[in-house]
């Protein structure tokens, strides 16, 4: 019953925990998937979780300029877009030369 009452409101802690779960899922996907595109999907999820916590802090925590958190999220989205563009281009290029996008088999720089 107390857990239900705890969940019947939204505070900073709740958002942070949601963000943490999302980040953990992203981390798991990024670490444990073979496909390069899937790894990138995990990274995007992690970035989303971080953005969520930024927004939560901007909403709840005392600050003279609360909307700076939003500006930061905009920049994170920008960087994520650039990163996704280059990373997926790399995946495509790697597939061309190695005929695979399994990150375990891409071992150009191993020795």
């Amino acid at each position, binding site marked *: 019953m107390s857990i239900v009452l705890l969940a019947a409101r939204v505070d900073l802690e709740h958002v942070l925990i949601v963000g943490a779960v999302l980040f953990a899922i992203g981390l798991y996907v990024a670490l444990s998937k073979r496909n390069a595109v899937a790894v990138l999907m995990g990274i995007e999820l992690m970035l989303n979780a971080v953005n969520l916590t930024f927004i939560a802090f901007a909403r709840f925590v005392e600050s003279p300029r609360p909307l700076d958190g939003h500006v930061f999220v*905009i920049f994170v*989205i*920008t960087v994520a*877009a*650039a990163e*996704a*563009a280059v990373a*997926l*281009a790399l995946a*495509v290029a790697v597939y061309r030369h190695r005929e695979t996008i399994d990150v375990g088999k891409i071992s150009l720089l191993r020795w």
Partner: protein
Amino acid sequence: MLEEFGRAGFLLMFALAFPILPIVASVVFGVFKMRPRRPDPIKTATYECGVETEGDALGQFNVRYYVYALIFVVFDVEILLLYPWAVALPTAGLAGFVAGALFLAILVVGFAYDWAKKALEWV
């Protein structure tokens, strides 16, 4: 602000009901045998103008699609960043105008590069 989004959320729920209704009606018609349902292997085969299907449809695609998507993503983000600038411009003064104009100029440089390198051609 939340109130406004909440009303849009109301509409969202109804928007889901709107197309589901005819689908449900169609299913109900099927249940009451008012609608034929006799699938056979020929009917449910993939339609390719009468020729028998060869290979899988979801094969490999040309890289030109990817180049377009690449340029699109970058420009989309840049234009998105210009929207807050557009709203804040009346109070921004000369410095704000120059900042936005510089931003647009860099965007134009990227665009000119794409054009010159023939990345915009559908080859």
